[in-house]
């Protein structure tokens, strides 16, 4: 057995893989946050709650209606996205033009509401979600075993991340979204329905969180608090990456997942805080964030 600094390589690789899976979730969540913030100027504190909601939607789907994993992958984000659009129409819309802090406070309240309701309906304890048949088992790579489902999570989230990047940076719809951020009245004068665009943006960002929730359901315990602890880490990731770029959110999410995985091998006690410590360093050295512009 080969070793690096007295630690078996297989252990390091295993933790790195787990780190990459976590990083994939960080990337998807910080991507959704970056989309919502970049295009609407709203910091969505409820992102973690929508992530939890996505997991619970999948759970209810399989328990109550016999809806399997694959349809849930589409249906749960759709349902949660619609709820997000409703919240944008009814509440968030009234805060445009005010100090962005109010958006943060409102979504914080929404997070409390959603998590409180989830806790009352489903209880505080965690529930498990079955791994889909197609992705059960592991592949032997020679130097380590790679669980199929985790490999799928990494591939799927990378695909979603780059798909979103392409949609916003390279398509006509994306150009309109960015134009709405630059100069909404002018875009509206060209005949584009800007309010609808904003509603769809929020719905889309929230749906990304829900999709991450469905992807995460088989590898974690589904509980009402699963999002609130994650969202703090994701905020730190966003501060590290800088909210300026979508690509930055993806890269820093994956990177920090890997670093966290490595910390679990070297010094497990610090694995909970390593992201926050890195954030503090980045603030000292480069306050705008690694990919940010100021």
């Amino acid at each position, binding site marked *: 057995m080969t070793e690096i600094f007295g630690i078996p390589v297989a252990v390091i690789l295993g933790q790195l893989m787990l780190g990459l899976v976590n990083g994939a979730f960080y990337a998807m969540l910080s991507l959704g946050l970056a989309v919502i913030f970049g295009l609407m100027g709203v910091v969505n504190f409820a992102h973690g709650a929508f992530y939890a909601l996505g997991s619970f939607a999948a759970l209810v789907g399989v328990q109550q209606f016999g809806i399997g994993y694959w349809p849930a992958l589409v249906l749960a984000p759709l349902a949660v996205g619609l709820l997000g659009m409703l919240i944008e129409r009814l509440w968030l819309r009234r805060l445009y033009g005010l100090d962005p802090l109010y958006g943060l*406070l409102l979504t914080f309240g929404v997070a409390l509401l959603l998590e409180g309701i989830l806790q009352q309906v489903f209880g505080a304890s965690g529930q498990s979600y079955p791994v889909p048949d197609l992705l059960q088992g592991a592949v032997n790579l020679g130097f380590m075993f790679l669980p199929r489902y985790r490999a799928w999570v990494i591939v799927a989230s990378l695909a979603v991340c780059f798909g979103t990047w392409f949609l916003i940076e390279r398509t006509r719809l994306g150009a309109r979204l960015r134009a709405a951020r630059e100069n909404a009245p002018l875009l509206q004068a060209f005949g584009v329905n800007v309010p609808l665009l904003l509603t769809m943006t929020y719905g889309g960002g929230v749906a990304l969180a829900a999709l991450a929730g469905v992807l995460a359901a088989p590898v974690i315990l589904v509980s009402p608090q699963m999002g609130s602890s994650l969202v703090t880490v994701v905020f730190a990731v966003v501060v590290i990456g800088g909210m300026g770029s979508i690509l930055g959110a993806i890269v820093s999410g994956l990177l920090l997942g890997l670093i966290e995985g490595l910390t679990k091998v070297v010094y497990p006690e610090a694995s909970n805080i390593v992201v926050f410590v890195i954030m503090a360093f980045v603030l000292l050295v480069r306050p705008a964030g690694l990919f940010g512009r100021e």
Partner: protein
Amino acid sequence: MRTRTLLYCAAGLCAAAVPLTGIYPVFVMTLLCFAIFACSFNLLLGFGGMLSFGHAAFFGTAAYTTGWLVAAHHCGPGTAIAGGVLAAAALGLGVGGLAIRRQGIYLAMVTLALAQLVYFVCLEAPFTGGENGLQGVARGALFGVLPLQSDTVMYYLVLGLFAAVLVAIMRIVHSPFGQVLGAIRENESRAISLGYDVQRYKLLAFVLSAALAGLGGALKTLVLGFATLSDVSQSVSGEVILMTLLGGIGTFFGPVLGAGIVVTLQEYLSEVVGGWVTVVIGAIFVACVLAFRRGIVGTMLRARRVRSSQ
């Protein structure tokens, strides 16, 4: 002006008479501790324009430090409170120094993340008692004479410190320092162009706010006799925001009123609605942000201003 002085005197007399009325003193003391905490938060947000989403870190650090000084080192309550306040101020120097490198919502996110860091440290550190926290912290005797075991004596100590905090905040806000702080809140670039060292003013505001939050936390430990993980948790950070928002951001008495309402709600609401408390708190949050951004005191002050201008 004279009616205001009369009002202050009346409020002071009512507060001083609480032990005679038979209201549970520990409840009122807890309320006052959270009122101090909310006032400290309001100093930062309402007068300094900085939203800290992790103010529980200061509250909880002081709560733990005070408890630890009493339980492990047998310090008197005076030393323990001073130690707690100092620890919170030192943490405020560190957190504030990092957080003011960003502005607005970024500052909020940085404070949230750093508070989470403090939470994990408190969870792991050897002297915090982990999940159980520090239990059975004795109140002792202040300066060796005043027996704080008596709820009445303790009550007057807390009330006196609470009044001192209110006066201190008024003095701070109306001082030249407070005026510059207000100018930075209104227009930071302009304050910079006028030659003010904006970062130093912000940092000082942060440290002052952290120290006062620490005073609230230190007193809370002595009043209730324990410090736990919930003192440093994100939900306490959220509660203090709600107290300030509900009472009125940037008003002197709004946070006090807000703290009174939220603490009372938590005390009695759980008996009525059970586990739905979080949902109710969330709903109040949403309603406040949407329809009631000035808060109770802010709305009252505005109504009076409108009436007097007619």
